Structure formats: C-alpha cells, structure tokens
C-alpha cells in the first residue's frame, strides 16, 4: 500500500468519525466526567482513610493528573476497538471486496484505525487543556519537552501494539461465532496490568517486576509516566524495547492466525 493511499484512507475515516458531533461530545463528556469523578472520590477516600500524604510516590494532585493522562491515553491507544473491525468483515462476508483490491487488507484496516483516532485526539486536547486550566498545572511540574517526545513515541508504539493484539483476536472470527468476548477480556486485562485502573507503582514488587516484561505496561502507563516525567530515559528505552519485542510477537501471531483463517474463509459470511 502506498503512503498516499494510506493517508487518504486515514483522512476519509477521520472525516466520517467526526460527522456525528452531538452524540460524540455528549458521550465523551459524560464518560470522562463519570470516570474522573469515581477516581477523584476513590483517591480522596484513600488519602483520608490511610492518613498518608503520599501513596506509592503520588500526592493526591499527582495521582489525579496521572489518571487524567492515562484515561486520555487509553482513548487514543484503544481507538475504536469494536467498530468496523476485521471480525465484522469476516462475519458479514465483507472481506471479499478487500481480497480483490490491490492493497493489503491489514494496511487498509490500520489506516482506518488511525483515521478513527481523530475524535480521541480532539478529546485528549480539549480535556487535557481543560484540566490544565482548572488545576492550574498542579501535579504537572515535571512535564518537559523530552518527556513529551518520549510520550509521543510510547503512544505511537502503544497504539500499534494494541491494534495488533486486538487484530489477532479479531481474526479468531474465522473459526468462532463471536469474538466480542475475547476483546472485552483483553480490555479487562489491559486495564489492570496496563496501569489504567491503578498506577502500576501501587502493585507489590512481586507483581510489578514481572509485569515490566509483559506488553501491558507499554499500553497506558508508559506514555502517561513519560509525559509526567516519572520515567528516566534509560528506563523508557528498556520499556520500549520490551514493547517492540511484544509487537513482533503479536505481528507473527496475527499473520499465522490470518493465513490459517483465510484458508477457512468461504466468503459468504455467517
């Protein structure tokens, strides 16, 4: 697939996603407000009832900023994991039209996924700026240009890694009648081990160390920690290396599943 075609697909998908504006903003604001309110109350209670001023290296303000960043990072990393994906094409026989066009199916799907990220980017910018104004920058003292660049790199890798993990599961649709449950299961596991439900610094050492060798930390915690200046450059490089290795593993897994599944594909859907 040429770069020009790739970006054309990205642009088309981005415009399509932005066309339902009212629905998009109602859901975005309500979802973010609810998620953030729960975090605020939970941590307020934790600090009050433990009597601590710092928990696992976080003050109250810092942990709130961590969650704001992690929630917004998750929106960008996950994109539209359920909508318009490979499993739908397999179920409905829509894969047929991709098989006869001179562009690889995978590249086409990834271009669509990248295009579908535009609403998440807009949300991240609006809510991030909003939080910065409301909090007067509290808890954001350690944000530097280097941290921003590390976060962008980590975010790009995280998005591609999550896409590949989800794509492998979507391809199970060649055999299974419904892969929705697998994707939801992926969501649960990545939320906990990726640092979205709680910062990974809260994990006991016996859990945190092994988790550093798994792909999940790369998804949400690493971009958020890099942005907030909580990870040194050397540690960031190590984590990125782990992420790249897992990306390779996910890519190989997806190729195997795709090739075997294609042999099963009858082209009539389910």
């Amino acid at each position, binding site marked *: 697939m040429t770069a020009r075609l790739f970006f054309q697909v990205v642009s088309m998908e981005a415009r399509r996603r932005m066309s339902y504006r009212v629905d998009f903003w109602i859901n975005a604001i309500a979802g973010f407000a609810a998620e953030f309110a*729960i975090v605020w*109350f939970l941590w307020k209670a934790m600090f009050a009832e433990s009597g601590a001023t710092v928990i696992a290296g976080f003050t109250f303000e810092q942990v709130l900023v961590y969650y704001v960043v992690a929630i917004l990072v998750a929106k960008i990393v996950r994109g539209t994991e359920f909508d318009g994906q490979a499993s739908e094409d397999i179920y409905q026989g829509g894969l047929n039209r991709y098989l006869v066009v001179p562009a690889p199916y995978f590249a086409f799907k990834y271009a669509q996924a990248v295009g579908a990220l535009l609403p998440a980017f807009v949300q991240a910018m609006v809510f991030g700026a909003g939080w910065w104004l409301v909090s007067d920058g509290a808890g954001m003292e350690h944000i530097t240009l280097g941290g921003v660049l590390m976060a962008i790199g980590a975010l790009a890798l995280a998005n591609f890694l999550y896409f590949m993990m989800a794509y492998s599961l979507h391809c199970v649709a060649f055999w299974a009648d*419904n892969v929705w449950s697998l994707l939801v*299961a992926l969501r649960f596991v990545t939320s906990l081990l990726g640092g979205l439900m709680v910062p990974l610094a809260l994990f006991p050492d016996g859990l945190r160390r092994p988790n550093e060798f798994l792909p999940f930390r790369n998804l949400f915690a690493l971009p958020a920690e890099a942005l907030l200046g909580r990870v040194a450059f050397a540690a960031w490089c190590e984590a990125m290396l782990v992420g790249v290795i897992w990306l390779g593993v996910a890519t190989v897994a997806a190729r195997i599943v795709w090739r075997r599944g294609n042999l099963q594909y009858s082209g009539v859907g389910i």
Partner: protein
Amino acid sequence: MSRYLVLYAYFLRFSFSKAMEFRVDFFFRVGMDALFYATHLAFFWVIYQHTPSVGGWNLDQTLVFAAGIFVADALHMTFLSNNMWLFPFLVNKGDLDYYLVRPVSTLFFVSLREFAANSFLNLLLAVAILLWALGRYPEALGAGQVTLYICLVMLGSFINYTISFLFVVPVFWLHNAAGLRDTYFGLSRFSGRPDGIYKGWVRRILTSILPFALITSFPTRALFQADGLSIAVHMLIVAAVTFGLLLFLWHRGLRSYASASS
C-alpha cells in the same frame, strides 16, 4: 401468573438450545466474565495494600461488596442485558408490533424474552465467589442479616433493571438510544465502588435520582451495619418510584410508537 411462568420456561428452553449452537462463544463468555471477576478482585486487593479502609469498609467487607457486584452484574447479564440491547432495534424496525399483539404484558415480553444462557454459568461462578467472600468474613453474620442482604441484592438488581430500561425507553421519541445507552454504561461505573466514598450532592444523586449506589453498596451496608431496615425501606421507595416512572414512560412511549416509522 402461571401463564407467565410457563412462557418464561419456553424462553429458557429456546435460549439454552440457541446457546448450545454457539459453543465456542459460550466458553469465551465464561472466560471473559472470569477475567472480569479476577481483575476486580485484584484491583481491590492492590488498593488495600495502601490503605486500611475505603469508604469505611475494610478488605473483608469490600470483598463481599465486590462479590455482590459480580452477582448483580451476572443477574443483569443473564436475564436482562440482551433485552435492553435489542429493545431499540425492536422499536426502530417496527418489530415491536409482534410483541404488542400477544396476549401477555409487552413490557414483560421485551424485558425477559432473551435469556443469556451463556452468562448463566457466570451467575453460578459469581454466587460461588459471594459464598467464598461471606465464608471468609472473620465476624459472625446472622442468618437474618444474610437473608436481608440476599433480598436487597435482588432488589438492587431490580433497581438496576429499571434504571437501564429508563435509559433506553426514550428511543420511542429519539429514535436512537445509542448515546443514552453509552451514558448508562458510563454512569453505572459508580456502582462499582463503595458508596461511602461519595460525598455531598454526588452522594445524594447516587442514592436517589440516579440510584447506582443502591444496587450493591446499600445491600452490603445493610449486611454490616445495624440500620438494615431503614436501608431496605429506602431501596423499596426508590424501586417503586423508578418502576412507576418506567411504567409511565413506557405507556407514553407506546402511544408515540408508530411501527416501522419510529
């Protein structure tokens, strides 16, 4: 009443035979919910490594609360969730016509027609976790307290049903309930944390207008605190009001329903 029970037995039979046709999905669902339970238990366990209590509850009490969430969620997923999901399609495609002409309550039919047999196993798993959480609780719990708790979990699940239906019933007028349904899912997360953490007007809203705190937190509170009766009365009033509102909107909605053009 017996007619409804016989009808529901048919719903169950159809649902189980349908679920058995999709066996892989059946096991995927079981695995998915098992992971949901595992991640939530792990979440609370990690939190309690850094604080002795959350919302006034210690880890033992929170594990019972978490198990209550699983049971309430499994009840919703097994008996109601699919129906809530399908209802907007029935209205928009005009398929509600087929339900309206049947000699039984349409609300009963659309609320309970789809029994998720593949979630039923998870209900058993959730009940097992609840028994485990109650069994490991270090203090003695009276039979009366436990009975009241079980009744209130059922009542909380009924409140959850009325709230979730209240979020989709506007499809009669809006023609698209996707946004409201997503809002329900977003707000329902409030029920996943002990109600003791919520303060001020948010707490008042969560215990009255949007009673998500009543689904599992209030039953758990009734189990561990002395004021079980006042909690039960509070929940009964909210259940009656929300169900009354649902009936009112349901009948108004049916009057606005214009078959396939809705």
